[in-house]
């Protein structure tokens, strides 16, 4: 058995490994772009894209490694995000070595997975990673937009075991629009624009740990959804000043054939939190107008979650959204493991964000 660094040329073999283990693989273009368009990867020659376990020449295990930048109070922190951690059944005793290599890279502040199942969670914890303290992280918030269709498809999904294959109007084009409410206005768009450069500068001194909101990072992270026209962003203006945004991704939940709208970014300063209620109402109107069945929200801090619940979102416990972090930077330990009410992490802060589709 040998362990080697993953190369871009390994895509097909890793894809086969994933197929054998019922794991989703991104298409080759999106997979390569996880690194090729990554703003940090492009600045360095040293980043390892992952490790592969080889039996003779066959790839029987892999653990991929994606760089993220996190920000807190004007400082930047380098994070390694674990992705595509999979081992063929007969080689599972070697999986720990791959995890060890990932968790022992030098010069990294945070090692993260936000897609851990119970087994990966135990392994991460054995290597001294911990679950984040964020309140209710594992309770997703759901809003059922179209109740009759939701319950019909839900019951059908329980009875019909094979995956639904009929198409929904997922590629429905939207018309960019501006909605004004008193001194607040919302501008619906399908991509980020240069206004986000200034916003990131203004929000630099943010009090919550979060992955970078700089334009280049946002464009990289949502590139696959933007290209497929599955991405929407609501720019929030107050007195004509751009003060924040909500980003959303549309997808089809395959088992039940639900048309799902995931709220993946809520970026607004705490002092403007009162605007959130109106912004979320606008999201709900958008979901109704474009025939979504359900709005799905994972993560976010307490004061944001309260706004969702006020509007009728319901909590649902989920097993597969364990957010585990190994921190080598003591400055971040309080934020991650003690600041339960104010920690504001969500899907966007780990590899889960790449697999909404």
């Amino acid at each position, binding site marked *: *058995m040998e362990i080697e660094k993953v190369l871009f040329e390994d895509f097909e073999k890793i894809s086969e490994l994933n197929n054998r283990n019922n794991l989703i693989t991104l298409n080759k273009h999106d997979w390569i772009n996880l690194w090729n368009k990554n703003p940090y990867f492009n600045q360095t020659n040293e980043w390892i894209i992952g490790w592969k376990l080889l039996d003779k020449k066959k790839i029987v295990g892999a653990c991929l490694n994606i760089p993220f930048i996190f920000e807190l109070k004007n400082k930047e922190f380098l994070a390694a995000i674990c992705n595509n951690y999979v081992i063929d059944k007969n080689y*599972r*005793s*070697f999986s720990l070595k791959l995890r*060890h290599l990932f*968790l022992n890279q030098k010069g990294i502040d945070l090692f993260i997975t936000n897609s851990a199942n119970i*087994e990966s969670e135990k392994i991460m914890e054995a*290597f001294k990673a911990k679950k984040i303290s964020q309140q209710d992280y594992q309770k997703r918030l759901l809003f059922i937009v179209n109740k009759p269709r939701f319950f019909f498809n839900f019951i059908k999904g329980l009875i019909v075991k094979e995956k639904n294959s009929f198409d929904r109007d997922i590629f429905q084009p939207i018309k960019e629009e501006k909605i004004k409410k008193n001194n607040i206005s919302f501008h619906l768009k399908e991509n980020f624009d240069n206004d986000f450069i200034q916003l990131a500068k203004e929000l630099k001194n943010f009090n919550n740990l979060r992955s970078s909101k700089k334009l280049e990072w946002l464009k990289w992270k949502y590139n696959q959804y933007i290209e497929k026209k599955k991405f929407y962003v609501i720019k929030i203006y107050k007195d004509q000043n751009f003060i924040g945004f909500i980003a959303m991704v549309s997808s089809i939940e395959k088992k039940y054939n639900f048309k799902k709208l995931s709220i993946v970014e809520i970026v607004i300063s705490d002092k403007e939190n009162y605007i959130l209620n109106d912004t979320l109402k606008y999201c709900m109107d958008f979901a109704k107008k474009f025939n979504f069945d359900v709005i799905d929200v994972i993560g976010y801090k307490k004061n944001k979650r309260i706004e969702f619940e006020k509007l009728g979102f319901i909590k649902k416990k989920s097993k597969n959204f364990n957010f585990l972090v190994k921190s080598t930077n003591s400055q971040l330990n309080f934020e991650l493991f003690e600041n339960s009410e104010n920690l504001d992490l969500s899907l966007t802060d780990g590899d889960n964000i790449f697999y909404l589709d």
Partner: protein
Amino acid sequence: MDIKKIINISIDEFNNSQNQFEIYKKNDFILLGEGSALDSLAIVNFLTKLDKNIFKESKKDLDLMNKIFSRQENKFSLLDLEELLKNNF
């Protein structure tokens, strides 16, 4: 308590906690690598128990997982474990 005794107590605890895997108290029993009868979760469970028992006896946090996996060798037996712990205990 000597380290061998702590290992044996941890093996008993592991063997009694489930019935899918069994660790035999033999020096050449392979814990990790080719020929190991344990899967990743079984190894984690055993080493976590051992880590706790060592901490109970010595108040030392050895970070066993990282110590073991920092080694370059492909195989890791009970004897290797005992020797590694003797040097760190």
